[in-house]
């Protein structure tokens, strides 16, 4: 990574003048970027602000009891306008190497909503954007506090073309490192309390002015006179009165140029802090997962919030078809849909109802009930949660469906959150607190993905008792014990409890296939032993189980 680092900065004076490309990028973004290791280094030099950046998935951030361990690591970077704060922020991100999740939060997002008078001034370039009063500090601090504590935050979007805060907001969640940059980042005491590391970028005034002229003439088509007038009227006084004095709060002062060494020092410090934390986590998480693998029976356990469907003849018949390796894909899909519809009906019984009187067409009054919930949504854990979606839709036609992609990391087997898309009602905390969520996954084996998914919902403010986990099979001896201990109020509805959970190669069909009647009876999940061993991946298998439900439903 140092090869792409060192070139450029040290020598040529012309380059000192250059503000790194996109220093003030447009503020509204909707995509977060998943970066492949190796390809991320260059990319991060242009790291977008207000976007969660990640080089791989997000590893667990909670201990075996489901509690979040420690807050995000927050770095505040202040310094004069055009001193190179963003550049420093990006270089730190870049030199962190393989990072979990980082967000660069810009002070610019937090300009206040302007009154009509202020707006007029702003368009006439007579509004003082450099004064602390221009920034909505309380909102800034509360957003940062939320992110630091691992909660979601919906940060405002400020439009420089409209000189106004927009109505929409930008949803952020799940950063383990937060870098806050802005000229007044160290000004507000409430903000300062939230930083774990405070940096001030020190740059000569004339260099900053030179960069500013260069940038504003090139990128914003301004005249030099205008820039100078604004500089003398607002920028310079604000720097002297509000920005420069905050350098005394900094833990470290970084030069605005020739700062490679300083950045490397900072990155090393941050890396060490992060590593300490993940080492502690690994130790704690090693204890999660199946420890007692003796075949279990649900009757031995006390799971007050685990409901198994009544084992009727039809249900047993459906399970016999689904478990049978010779079942065709067509039948598998049909009976999975039928079962998931029935499971969803049962899960809906957990929703609270209130009294409601109606009049029937014959004129009689009926004292009935109606659902008494503010928001209901589904979230499926991909890919295996997908087969349960159709059933849920048959029961709540227009239900909002979110998704999470959680995969295990090949070497350690620890779960990684790769993708997260949540319905609007969960993104906003005050609505999440009143939302009921049906969390869908085909089975609970080790429970690692379920554990992470529940943690994500809790982070967003969804109450435990409002989470209803809908699943086809629960392994009696698996992670369901850990789940119920960590989240005793989460309710689980399942179709069957299977006794065995064991580790095996990612290989299903070890027995000779039954007589192929039309060449297509072989289970679609079948793999040869060689294929599985070449993949070198061990998986946890529920038995008797249904094989890999996602594969059988989709492939």
């Amino acid at each position, binding site marked *: 990574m140092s090869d792409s680092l060192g070139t450029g900065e040290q020598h040529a004076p012309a380059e000192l003048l250059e503000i790194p490309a996109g220093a003030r990028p447009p503020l509204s973004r909707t995509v977060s970027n998943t970066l492949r290791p190796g390809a991320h280094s260059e990319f991060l030099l242009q790291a977008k602000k207000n976007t969660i950046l990640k080089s791989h998935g997000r590893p667990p951030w909670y201990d075996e009891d489901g509690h979040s361990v420690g807050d995000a690591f927050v770095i505040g970077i202040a310094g004069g306008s055009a001193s190179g704060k963003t550049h420093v922020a990006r270089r730190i991100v870049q030199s962190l190497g393989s990072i979990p999740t980082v967000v660069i939060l810009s002070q610019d997002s937090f300009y206040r909503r302007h009154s009509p008078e202020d707006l007029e001034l702003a368009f006439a370039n007579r509004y003082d954007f450099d004064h602390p009063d221009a920034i909505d500090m309380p909102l800034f601090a509360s957003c940062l506090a939320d992110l630091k504590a691992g909660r979601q935050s919906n940060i405002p979007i400020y439009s420089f073309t409209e000189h106004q805060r927009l109505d929409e907001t930008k949803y952020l969640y799940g950063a383990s490192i937060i870098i806050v940059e802005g000229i007044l980042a160290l000004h507000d005491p409430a903000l300062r309390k939230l930083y774990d590391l405070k940096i001030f970028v020190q740059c000569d005034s004339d260099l900053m002015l030179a960069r500013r002229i260069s940038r504003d003439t090139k990128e914003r088509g301004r005249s030099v006179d205008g820039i100078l007038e604004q500089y003398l009227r607002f920028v310079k006084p604000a720097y002297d009165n509000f920005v420069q004095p905050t350098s005394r709060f900094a833990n470290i002062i970084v030069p605005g140029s020739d700062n490679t060494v300083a950045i490397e020092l900072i990155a090393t410090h941050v890396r060490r802090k992060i590593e300490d934390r993940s080492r502690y986590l690994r130790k704690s998480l090693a204890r999660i997962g199946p420890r007692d693998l003796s075949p279990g029976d649900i009757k031995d356990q006390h799971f007050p919030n685990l409901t198994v469907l*009544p084992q*009727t*003849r039809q249900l047993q018949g459906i399970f016999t078809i689904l478990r049978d390796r010779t079942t065709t894909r067509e039948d598998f899909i*049909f009976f999975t849909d039928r079962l998931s519809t029935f499971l969803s009906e049962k899960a809906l*019984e957990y929703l609270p109802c209130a009294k409601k009187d*109606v009049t*029937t067409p014959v004129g009689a009054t009926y004292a009935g009930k109606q659902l008494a919930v503010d928001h209901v949504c589904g979230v499926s854990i991909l890919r295996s949660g997908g087969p349960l979606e159709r059933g849920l839709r048959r029961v709540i036609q227009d239900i909002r469906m979110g998704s999470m992609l959680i995969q295990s990391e090949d070497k350690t087997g620890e779960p990684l959150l790769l993708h997260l898309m949540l319905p609007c009602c969960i993104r906003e905390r005050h609505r999440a607190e009143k939302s009921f969520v049906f969390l869908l996954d085909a089975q609970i084996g080790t429970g690692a993905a379920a554990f992470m998914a529940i943690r994500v919902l809790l982070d967003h403010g969804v109450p435990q008792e409002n989470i209803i986990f809908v699943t086809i099979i629960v392994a009696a001896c698996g992670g369901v014990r850990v789940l119920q201990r960590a989240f005793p109020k989460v309710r689980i509805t399942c179709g069957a409890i299977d006794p065995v959970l064991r580790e095996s190669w990612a290989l299903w*069909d070890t027995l000779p296939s039954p007589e192929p009647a039309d060449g297509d009876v072989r289970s679609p999940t079948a793999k040869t032993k060689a294929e599985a061993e070449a993949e070198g991946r061990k998986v946890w298998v529920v038995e008797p*189980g249904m094989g890999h439900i996602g594969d059988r439903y989709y492939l």
Partner: protein
Amino acid sequence: MVVSNSPTSQSTPASLPPSVFTLPQTAQLEALFTIIRDKETSRGDFLFYSDRIIRLLVEEGLNHLPVIPKTVTTPTGATYEGVGFEGKICGVSILRAGEAMEAGLREVCRSVRIGKILIQRDEETAQAKLFYAKLPQDIAQRYVLLLDPMLATGGSAIKAVEVLKEHGVPEDRIIFINLIASPEGLKNFCGKYPLTRVITGWIDQCLNEKAYIIPGLGDFGERRYCV
């Protein structure tokens, strides 16, 4: 593995004949009925929510069919001792309202054969009279799910069973499925055919002088197809 071998999750209220089964009377089910009973409910909602109840009814009705032990091998190579479905089935809907239950039936039983019976009141005799019947040829070898959403006086259902019996279907192989039943209708029907099982969603208070179920939901076919 827990298998409580209850054939069904339904219950029979103590005051009713033993051949009558209702769905579990949950708050959720009550909320569904509240929607379809409400005269302000739009047709779209009526369709969607009545389909949900019908699906539950069909699921429960099917639990009364026999199963036989069956052992299968799972994709991981484990053995599972389950059950296989036994016996052929068909649906028979009593026109016109009974047709509304066919979609729900086919969602649970793909491509099931469906016979149709039209029974109307003969205005001269005030008796239920068969106008039309089109049934699968081998119906005598099948279990029959008889579909009619409302059991009011029981007149047409009794006539329908009579027709089925004439076609060789034994009484105990007929499962009559309806959403709402009146106590009077249940008494009449079960008095006549004690061996036919009746699966109902909800048992209402009574019939009024025009033989409408109270509180009921009005004319099911009318609301499903016309309003």
